[in-house]
């Protein structure tokens, strides 16, 4: 247990440092830019100020907000803190997988586990719910969160069945589990509605977001695996 906790804490912390730097360089500027479009759109009488699309649930509008971090350093600090939470959280899930597998894990093995984490928690959910800029048009929040979690669960289970399943039927079941959420389909807003930001910005954001997620998972897997091997 000590080994798992140390690997998760070190891996999560280092991945947080890596992702925070990468995000601030290539992702956050796009978010800030999108917010200027979101605000500009909010100034027009229709649609309602900062409403994230007609299909979005009530209570998620920006115009009635309470506390939020001040622009600049404070906002970046809270983003870094959130990255630490996500980093250690995902690291704990990763070392839980190391523990369950009972296999030897080192830096290189960890990198493979990290690749599985990227497929499970970044790429697969993004196929149904592409990374969204502020001001995007989207379906209601709860069904989207539910689909995100379901697709991550199905992809993780499916990958485990494909990699560790001894019988070909189990591997086929794994493929089916990965495909299923996409056959069911993610909740989407009605076609034809456009978000506040230009599509070019949204496209850049989607790619940058996935690229930084890949960096995050590579660092997380490598470092947690390397520490796992040394601590024992």
């Amino acid at each position, binding site marked *: 247990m000590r080994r*798992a906790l140390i690997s998760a804490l070190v891996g999560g912390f280092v991945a947080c440092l890596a992702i925070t730097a990468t995000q601030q360089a290539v992702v956050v500027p796009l978010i800030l830019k999108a917010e200027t479009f979101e605000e500009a759109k909010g100034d027009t009488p229709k649609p309602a100020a900062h409403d994230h699309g007609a299909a979005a649930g009530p209570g998620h509008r920006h115009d009635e907000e*309470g506390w939020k971090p001040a622009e600049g350093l404070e906002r970046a600090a809270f983003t870094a803190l959130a990255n630490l939470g*996500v980093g250690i959280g995902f690291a704990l899930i990763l070392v839980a997988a190391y523990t369950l597998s009972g296999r030897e894990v080192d830096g290189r093995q960890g990198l493979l586990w990290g690749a599985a984490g990227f497929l499970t928690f970044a790429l697969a959910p993004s196929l149904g719910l592409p990374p969204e800029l502020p001001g995007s048009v989207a379906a209601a929040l709860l069904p989207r969160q539910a689909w995100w979690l379901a697709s991550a669960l199905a992809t993780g289970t499916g990958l485990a069945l494909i990699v560790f399943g001894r019988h070909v039927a189990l591997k086929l079941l794994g493929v089916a589990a990965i495909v299923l959420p996409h056959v069911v389909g993610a909740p989407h807003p009605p076609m034809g509605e456009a978000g506040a930001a230009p599509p070019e910005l949204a496209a850049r954001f989607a790619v940058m977001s996935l690229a930084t997620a890949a960096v995050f998972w590579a660092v997380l897997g490598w470092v947690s695996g390397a520490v796992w091997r040394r601590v024992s």
Partner: protein
Amino acid sequence: MSRIAATAAAGLTDLSGRLGRAAILALVGVLLVFITGFAHPELVHNATHDARHAFAFPCH
């Protein structure tokens, strides 16, 4: 107990131990990711806003 049975029993104990530890680790991990990435309270949402967008968690 035969040696094979003893080995099998030890293997089972080992598996159940691993299962328990993995469950606890995963549960705490999921809880952390849930709070930072998914929890609805406005305060949490506003503090984690940029990270949520950057990680492509559904936001708003």
